[in-house]
């Protein structure tokens, strides 16, 4: 395979990298003296155009290739996920335009784009080495993005926590992956599965599975590997937190599902109630159950909205893991649908937090009091995001949950093996309505402060939020469109 061909296959990634460099250079050379806001607008525009160009490339030149034995797999499914990912990145960039926590606009935007590149490679990887490298490529910019608010000591603390936990989990994962290589003699997921097939559940394989789950569990912030998340979400600049919660989640879940379903095919075991069979499914079932319980219960007592969203993210990781457990074609489709709609919703929620932060100076719950009287459009958007996260129809979050649960129960048919997890999930989502309503209660019911310190949302910020909210409503009312796209992309890949 010639380099030219390889470059063509990696063109979307290349376009994004070039965009990152362009943003950096333009900001450093020609925009030095300008106002931060103007620099953010121009930089953000360039970044968005770059992402759009990458999306266009993928739409116009649909490719199907497997370069270098799983190092770079291009098929309709990875293309679709990358398009969704780039969309999420664009929205992340757009909600950061209004922020003024940093003067290093070029670096900030470039880092967002570089993290995105890491995620794109991650999605295309079917080789454990490449997966590890891409994960690091994603994580490093995210650590820096978390620390980007240099005026706030909390931001630095959050980044340090994130980094230390991240480094540790990377070590675990590397250990797990090396065991897998030792067991199978291959780094390609398909070949690993083939080599492991029929060998039964070697104790070494069990260790490898657990280590890998720890590594990925950290990335998706599942209990008990979630400890970094609340601090990182709260301390990080809001747009950075949005990226961690959306794009990074989508990519991590996709690769998590891929490694488990492809690499450990044959070692599933069973998570059916009172019929556990050792394998990776029961391990993840426990992690999923713990995430839902702890995430939802801990969120109840939060008084900081970003922290609340962090715990809600942990809970949602639990719901998504249920889909991974189902490990069939539809499970892949449902996890993608869930992750993408969750990403959209959560970016929107962080966008609203960013608006309030600028008006009120902080992101505690009382700062939201009376928001509906001061900023009706933003409030309506927040209502849509919160209710979607709680899983109220006809919003995207509801259909995501329904899809995941239906797939999970179906995978255990006819005994409805995973029903216990679904019951747990629905019980916990009833709990979650309480804390989402707490936020909405502040916005709609509570009286705002008497002073006229009005939260002014600029028109572009409102427009971005409105587009996101509209997307959440439309994806909820007409989920058939996206589900159809995903399912038709999944089919040819997994046979």
């Amino acid at each position, binding site marked *: 395979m010639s380099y030219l061909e390889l470059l063509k296959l990696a063109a979307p990634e290349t376009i994004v990298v070039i965009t990152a460099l362009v943003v950096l250079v333009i900001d450093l050379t020609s925009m030095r003296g300008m106002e931060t806001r103007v620099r953010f607008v121009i930089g953000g525009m360039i970044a968005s155009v770059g992402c759009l160009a990458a999306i266009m490339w993928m739409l116009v030149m649909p490719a199907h290739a497997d370069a270098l034995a799983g190092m770079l797999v291009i098929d309709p499914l990875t293309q679709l996920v990358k398009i969704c990912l780039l969309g999420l990145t664009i929205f992340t960039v757009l909600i950061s335009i209004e922020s003024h926590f940093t003067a290093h606009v070029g670096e900030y935007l470039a880092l967002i784009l570089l993290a995105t590149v890491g995620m794109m490679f991650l999605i295309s990887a079917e080789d454990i080495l490449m997966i590890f490298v891409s994960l690091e490529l994603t994580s490093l910019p995210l650590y820096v993005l978390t620390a980007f608010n240099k005026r706030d000591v909390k931001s630095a603390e959050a980044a340090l926590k994130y980094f230390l936990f991240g480094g540790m989990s990377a070590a675990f994962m590397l250990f797990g992956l090396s065991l897998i290589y030792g067991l199978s003699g291959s780094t390609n997921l398909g070949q690993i599965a083939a080599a492991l097939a029929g060998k039964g559940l070697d104790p070494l394989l069990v260790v490898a599975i657990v280590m890998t789950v720890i590594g990925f569990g950290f990335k998706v912030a599942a209990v008990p590997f979630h400890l970094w998340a609340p601090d990182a979400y709260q301390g990080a600049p809001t747009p950075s937190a949005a990226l961690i919660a959306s794009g990074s989640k989508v990519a991590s879940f996709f690769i998590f599902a891929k490694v488990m379903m492809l690499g450990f095919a044959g070692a599933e075991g069973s998570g059916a109630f009172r019929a556990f069979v050792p394998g990776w499914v029961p391990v993840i079932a426990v992690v999923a159950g713990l995430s839902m319980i702890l995430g939802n219960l801990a969120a109840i007592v939060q008084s900081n909205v970003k922290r609340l969203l962090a715990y809600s993210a942990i809970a949602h990781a639990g719901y998504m893991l249920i889909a991974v457990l189902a490990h069939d074609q539809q499970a892949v489709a449902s996890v993608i649908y869930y992750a993408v709609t969750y990403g959209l919703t959560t970016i929107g929620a962080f966008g609203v937090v960013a608006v309030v932060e600028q008006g009120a100076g902080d992101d505690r719950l009382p700062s939201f009091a009376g928001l509906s009287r001061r900023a009706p459009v933003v409030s309506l958007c927040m209502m849509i995001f919160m209710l979607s996260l709680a899983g109220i129809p006809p919003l995207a979050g509801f259909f995501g949950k329904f899809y995941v649960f239906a797939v999970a129960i179906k995978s255990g048919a006819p005994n*409805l093996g995973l029903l216990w997890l679904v019951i747990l999930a629905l019980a916990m989502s009833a709990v979650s309505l309480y804390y989402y309503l707490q936020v909405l209660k502040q916005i*709609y019911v509570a009286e705002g402060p008497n002073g006229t310190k009005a939260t002014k949302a600029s028109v572009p910020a409102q427009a971005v939020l409105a587009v996101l909210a509209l997307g959440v409503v439309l994806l909820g009312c007409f989920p058939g469109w996206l589900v159809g796209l995903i399912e038709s992309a999944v089919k040819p890949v997994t046979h």
Partner: protein
Amino acid sequence: MLAWTIYSSFLGVLVLMLLPKGNASAARKVAMLTAVMGLLVALAGFMQFKAGEIVTVADVDWIPTLGIRYHLAADGISLTLVLLTGLAAVAGILFSWNIEHRANEFFAFYLTLIGGVYGVFLSFDVFLLFVFYELAIIPKYFLIAIWGSTRKEYGAMKLALYSFVGSAMVLIGLIAAYVKAGAHTMSIVELAKYPFPHDFQMWAFPLVFVGFAILAGLWPFHTWAPTGHVAAPTAASMLLAGVVMKLGAYGCLRVAMTLFPEGLEAWKYWIAVLAVIGIVYGAMVALVQKDFKFVIGYSSVSHMGFVLLGLVTLNTIGLSGAVLQMFSHGVIAGLLFAVVGRMVYERTHTRELSVLEGMNLAKAMPFAAVTFVIAGAASMGLPGFSGFVAELQVLIGAWKAFPTLAVITGGGIVIGVAYTLRAMQKAFFGEAERPLTPALSPSDGERENASQDGHHHAMDAISVPERIGAVMLIGVSLLIGLYPRLLLDVIVPSFNSPLFDWLRRGGAQ
């Protein structure tokens, strides 16, 4: 055409959101127009309806890969309730004509709730039904939390969480049933034909039935109802008692009972017991309440017990009685809440029966007194009103199915007479020991209310919208009471549709 009941409600919401803030009079006109349109559409649909058929309103693919369809249809049962929703919507707006505080939002939430309710009654796809069902939860929260009184945030949250827990139970059962039946359809008609295994029905039926029945005020899951009703603003408590509780009962009938007949057969006695406990318990608790609105709140629990009892009798007379009772209670409870919440509370600013006793309200507001006497008579089940026909049918049905329980229920009716008369006596016909002044009794909602309408220092005359609303609801109750065949001719043949095959097999399979 019936689908326009749903669409027009949501269009109304859209218009209200675009209206400039602070123009309450425009907002209520838009809301009124929307509600009247809904009622007219419902009426027209009712006129055109031929007894016994199932009219398909819309049926298109919605989520093809999962076999979920956007299927709206109506039989006699749904049409009766759609008509009730139309009536309740119009009446509710008439009785909230004085809302000035954030009027746009009030009516937007109100119409969202109405749209969701219409949707539930017209859905013939379980998924769609569930979507509308949950859509109705959230507006209730905001209506109560923002415009309510007496511990409004507590009442609102309790109501929202109870409803949501109920719907989570329903969702578990529905997904399980969907997967069991092959995961290719959510249509009620298709699922009703599928023979679910006995073991499955044994747990799925109670799960789904109770999940829905929570919203219908089934004892012991009724506690949200009194607190919610009391905290809610008048229009919301009218809707809550009038139609939202019917959503629960309708879900029990349309989904739980239709899908899982074997489970129903096994569990019906226990549900009947709970329903009768609800009837008697609700009535007894209503007898000792100090707050006027709590009396009506508990009476709703009691009356909804009749609906649930009628449903599980499984004979045509009991079932049609249950549906008629849903309609009848919707109208009468709406009227009672209107008198208590709007006519009395917003003028006297108290609902303490002991305080009201000293005001001699029969003299001060004769119209309210007359309305309450009539509504009370209807609520007691006096012949000539709709409540009588409905409860009689339920009792006859219950006598056939569970004779012992029917006798106890009779006792509940007697207590029902007692608490209604007691409330009537205390509220309107007490001795005027104290001079007629606006009470300054401590009440949580007083401050909000005082700021909402600037005229709390004089007792206003009963306004024209209130009179129209009261006359309309009384008229409907009388009409159905005197000529019940108007509805029964539509309801009864519906139980002969293929959906209720189990019924014609004597309730057993």
